[in-house]
């Protein structure tokens, strides 16, 4: 049966769009199916969502040619301060400081708002002739056989491809239909996410406070604005989310003190239940999973999108090399190369963030003392600190070329 497209991507979020561009760039024809109407995706209104892009993710955007579109609206992260704290007391005196001056690569990462990233990706896809965007439609069925996969869309239309890639999020229907199960657990913690405006400058400093209920991150946005990721137990988060904006701010303010001056809301308020899930396999016959469809990690280190873009870079590289040697890129041994590359790395990250969270999200006096001493100790050892900075910037591990900012 003749193929309509080399590769079909289910899900047109940030990962799906970046993957479509990466694959088109190495010569594949790509169709990307997304249920969201185009007008909603291109909205310029700030909804309060932002991402902490690791340096490697920024390099990927650079390699895909879309970084210049977002650079003007990106806030470099120049320093990260990590401290232990309790709501009433503010941060403890033991502070772990990471400064970009300690690594040679420049800023440790960038804060970018969802609206700018989304807009830049959409624009790049519009001008990529090898990418066919199919909006306001979803994939409702997939039928794999020896030579390809036939996908049925919600309109009833069918498309034939050599490979189906699920970028369709944590409840990935692509994974379910492929018979891939997930393992994981819920933390009974929920992240409250919002953007705030504040009186004083943030100086490009990202703060992470470890509170007994969970971490609180203050991430610098352009201007006197910051993105807040505030973790509470699920019951407490539900209560806070029901508060009026003024009461919400009143609850937030004492948690990190007044170093930014008076604060106000600068966008919508969101909640995200925290969970850790890992797909039992990242690939099946003529099927691969990317991003949250494959793994959802505790967002404690802001690694969700960064981990997804690592998948994008690794999968694009595996498929590009496979294409150049004339292999059928949907065949199982090709897809296994992607799984071998990413699944171990992902499982390690999941385990590390989980351990970190369990260690810090409690009010045990002994652990608290140990943490404070530990943070002080890390701070006094330059080489250990430099390694942690490189880890946070995504500069460690077996890096796919796109994450090094190089073409595949």
């Amino acid at each position, binding site marked *: 049966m003749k193929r309509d497209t080399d590769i079909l991507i289910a899900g047109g979020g940030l990962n799906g769009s970046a993957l479509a561009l990466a694959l088109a760039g*190495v010569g594949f024809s790509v169709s990307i199916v997304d249920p969201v109407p185009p007008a909603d995706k291109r909205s310029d209104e700030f909804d309060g969502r932002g991402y902490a892009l690791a340096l490697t993710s920024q390099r990927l955007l650079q390699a895909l040619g879309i970084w210049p579109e977002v650079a003007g609206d990106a806030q470099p992260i120049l320093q990260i301060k990590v401290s232990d704290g309790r709501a009433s007391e503010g941060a403890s005196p033991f502070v772990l400081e990471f400064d970009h001056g300690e690594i040679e690569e420049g800023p440790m990462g960038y804060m970018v708002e969802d609206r700018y990233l989304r807009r830049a990706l959409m624009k790049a896809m519009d001008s990529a002739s090898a990418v066919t965007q199919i909006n306001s439609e979803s994939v409702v069925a997939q039928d794999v056989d020896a030579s390809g996969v036939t996908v049925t869309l919600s309109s009833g239309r069918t498309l034939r491809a050599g490979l189906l890639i699920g970028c369709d999020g944590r409840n990935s229907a692509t994974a379910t239909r492929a018979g891939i199960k997930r393992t994981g657990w819920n933390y009974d913690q929920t992240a409250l996410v919002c953007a705030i405006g504040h009186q004083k400058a943030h100086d490009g400093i990202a703060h992470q406070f470890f509170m007994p209920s969970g971490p609180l991150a203050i991430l610098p946005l352009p201007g006197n604005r910051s993105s807040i990721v505030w973790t509470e137990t699920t019951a407490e988060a539900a209560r806070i989310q029901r508060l009026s904006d003024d009461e919400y701010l009143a609850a937030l303010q004492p948690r990190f003190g007044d170093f930014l001056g008076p604060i106000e809301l600068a966008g919508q308020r969101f909640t995200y239940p925290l969970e850790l899930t890992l797909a039992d396999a990242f690939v099946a016959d003529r099927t691969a999973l990317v991003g949250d469809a494959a793994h959802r990690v505790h967002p404690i280190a802001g690694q969700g999108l960064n981990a997804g873009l690592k998948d994008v870079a690794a999968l694009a590289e595996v498929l590009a090399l496979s294409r*150049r*040697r*004339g*292999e059928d890129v949907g065949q199982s041994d090709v897809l296994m190369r992607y799984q071998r590359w990413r699944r171990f790395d992902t499982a390690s990250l999941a385990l590390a963030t989980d351990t970190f969270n369990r260690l810090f999200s409690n009010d045990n006096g002994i652990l608290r003392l140990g943490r404070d001493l530990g943070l002080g100790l890390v701070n006094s050892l330059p080489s250990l600190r430099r390694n942690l900075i490189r880890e946070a910037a995504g500069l460690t591990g077996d890096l796919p070329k796109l994450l090094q900012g190089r073409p595949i």
Partner: protein
Amino acid sequence: MQTATNTVDPAEIEKFQAMAAEWWNPNGKFKPLHMLNPCRLDYICAQVAAEFGRDLTGTLPFKGLRILDIGCGGGLLSEPMARLGAEVMGADAAERNIPVAQVHAAESGLEIDYRHTTAEALAEAGEQFDAVLNMEVVEHVADPLAYLTACQKLLKPGGLMVCSTINRNPKSFMMAIVGAEFVMRWLPKGTHDWSKFITPDELFDLLKSCGLEPVDRKGFVFNPIQWSWSLSERDLSVNYVTTSVKPA
């Protein structure tokens, strides 16, 4: 057989016929070949691209090239070459491999001319190719010099042959026969006859004797930690590959 004169040892053909149906299962009996395949393809693609000035990052880089895959089996090399745009003929002395390869190529939407024949028969018929792929065959033929001479005749002037085989030394005996056939059970016992293995220098001498100019040789090395094969400049102690060209 389409010809009375061929150098294929009948006992060898039967061994591979018994294995033919499993060709395309990456976890089946041909798993070792599937594991080696990306490495051999990388080598072949790089050599062909360099010789004919093609860009592998482009679309259909081998368009206009006529390539012969000798001992094509189920088409593990023929299909990638066709996918890269080459006009491919796959030849195999084992009759049963031909329908297996044909069925699979049709499934993959590829046009490949698969034939139950030998290098000698094709040379006699005056067939000419830009490149001849001669991978893991020479250690199975009864008369290597006669066989390689036939391969040389099949090349157009300026054409290129990639030829891989197994070295002959105590290590290759341990790895290819004791290791692959008895310990790992990657291959059926008796797949290889160690006395037919050829050292790289012997192969270069053979290639020169039949009028080819050897230009490159590299090792295929298995890494048990990464569980995959890679190319080596230095280690040709077991599996190795050579490129030679027919002077224009």
